[in-house]
């Protein structure tokens, strides 16, 4: 990308050292009844954050919190970065999981790997998912135990630790998406003529698809 830009995420970083955290844990099914795109932050990790059963109409300030859960503990209540194990966001395609993370204030997730659909959904909502090796992640874990804070620089694709930097890979197209905040639909509709041409050719060669 030859544009002049900078994209830095810096803030409190919480670790949940569990593998295969599925999107049902990130936002339970009950909250999928909403027809809105916002307002899911209070229900993030609902089953782990609260001891009682919730629903979309229940005031979360009246609910019994699980005081042991990291996102209920200061200063992690204000986390911006989440550090997790492998295959984070596996399972259901619900974009509500990303909306819940975003609404809570999470801007970046560092994991050993991600579920594919979840990974895509992140970029549609300005959340940066970073995939790094287990070794590198262990360094990050050690760092945040001491410092609680992380600085992620998307420009240089680096996570800054006290005395070192961890580099991460990310596809250029997705990096652009986060930095420029582009609207995918606008971009794609710029190719409307090619899509129409493709479509009409398709219906000539495979008319049963019409």
């Amino acid at each position, binding site marked *: 990308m030859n544009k002049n830009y900078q994209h830095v995420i810096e803030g409190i970083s919480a670790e949940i*050292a*569990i*593998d*295969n955290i*599925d999107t*049902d*844990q990130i936002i*339970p*099914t*009950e909250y*999928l*009844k*909403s*027809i*809105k*795109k916002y307002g899911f932050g209070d229900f993030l990790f609902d*089953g782990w954050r609260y001891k009682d*059963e919730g629903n*979309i*109409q229940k005031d979360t300030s009246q609910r019994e919190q699980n005081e042991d859960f990291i996102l209920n503990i200061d200063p992690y209540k204000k986390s911006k970065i989440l550090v997790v*194990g*492998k*295959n984070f966001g*596996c*399972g*259901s*395609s*619900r*974009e*509500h999981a*990303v909306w819940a993370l975003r609404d809570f204030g999470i801007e970046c997730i560092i994991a050993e*790997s*991600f*579920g*594919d*659909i979840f990974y*895509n*959904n992140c970029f*549609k*909502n300005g959340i940066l998912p970073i995939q790094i090796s287990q070794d590198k992640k262990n360094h990050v874990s050690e760092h945040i135990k001491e410092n609680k804070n992380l600085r992620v620089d998307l420009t240089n694709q680096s996570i800054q630790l006290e005395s070192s930097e961890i580099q991460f890979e990310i*596809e*250029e*197209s997705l990096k*652009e998406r986060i930095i420029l905040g582009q609207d*995918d*639909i606008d*971009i*794609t*509709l710029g*190719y*409307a003529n*090619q*899509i129409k041409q*493709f*479509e009409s050719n398709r219906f000539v060669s*495979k*008319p*049963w*698809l*019409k």
Partner: protein
Amino acid sequence: MNKTLYDKLWDDHEVINFDNDESLIYIDRHFLHEVTSPQAFEGLKQKSLKPWRIKSNVATPDHNVPTVRGNKFDTASIEDEISKIQVIELEKNCSEFDIHFHDINSNKQGIVHVIGPENGYTLPGMSIVCGDSHTSTHGAFATLAMGIGTSEVEHVLATQCLRIKKLRNLGIKLIGLPDPSITSKDVILYIIRTLGTDIGNGHAIEFFGDYIKSISMEARMTICNMSIEAGAKVGLIAYDSVTEKYLEERMSISNKDLQNALDYWETLKSDDGASYDDLIEIDISNLKPQISWGTSPEMTTDFDSSVPIIDSADPKNVTYKKAIDYMGLQEGQPISSLSFDKVFIGSCTNSRIEDLRLVAGIVDGKKLSPNIKEALVVPGSGMVKLQAQSEGLDKIFENAGFQWRDPGCSMCLGMNPDRLSPEERCASTSNRNFEGRQGTRGRTHLVSPLLAAKIAIHGSVPN
């Protein structure tokens, strides 16, 4: 160049190959349901856009709908006000944009992944998407089918395309033929148990081998359905005579076009010598019935074995211990010692007529075990329901003590009133045993319809 089936499907739908590793992929079929579509329609309206190709869309409510409905039921009868709003929203959006819609009373209403194939909406060679991860089901028909998020639902409505990166090819070759009493659910659970829930991340999985050739379309759909539980959003099986036979009575293609379609479909298989990025062989000749013990589908074992003993040096030990604790189990506890409270027969994995026949075969003339508080049979669609009733299966279920319900996703995810209470243990033919999946603090054990039926009668896993 020798291509895999996935390569062929990808190439056939690629509108533009951008130089930044993404492509614009044309979408032939878009299924919609009430949960993941309202925000997408809202976005469309805000941008003053209309669906690009209305005829590509098919919609029905499935996730939220109550499964006790009766004849006079309509959307207004849904008791849960929030669920009702979501179903009404789908009706309104489909009506506003003239989208083909099967309402809650229609015989064609059902789980989108069940009604798609049975009504001929799913055809080989298509690209198919839906805001639901189990869209992989349709890959059993040699289609490029995948689950997408709501932003992508909006994108497909607006542009008829997805902007995505090509996946890698993972071939899973199944070696040997298991005993006929083993179902395809056991096979896919065993694959996930063996390879883990992330083996398919970044991949399209193609399943092949003599076993795959030998099984029905229903059984193939079960396998592709759960490819997402192995991490792959795309699961594929080649077109063959079994596919053709299934489609014969379901598709509506004019005689003029039929031969061309059949000729094209014949090509929908991987070429000899096609190269996969990864190729894994799994021997299933001695496979036993499978049952999950934990809170991830990979936490699965043989029906006659025990809950694992966790090695504290194993990097998975934290995750595994948490799962054992959640499930109310002890390390090393025999699976046969578990007492069940509920049985759920249904979901897009196992709610087709063949599944119901398997269950009926076991429970015919028998009664539920006294410890089973509730056993539901939820057909995947109105068509499955009618077929089952015409065969008298409903009576067999009811005589055994099961409840015969109306179609929907039901207790697979507990979005409607069909839920587990805290700590209830359920034998379920669904696809996910995640914490709270079937109800807050509920405990799910994934099994085949055959094993679920046996548990319903026996109250526990019979040896």
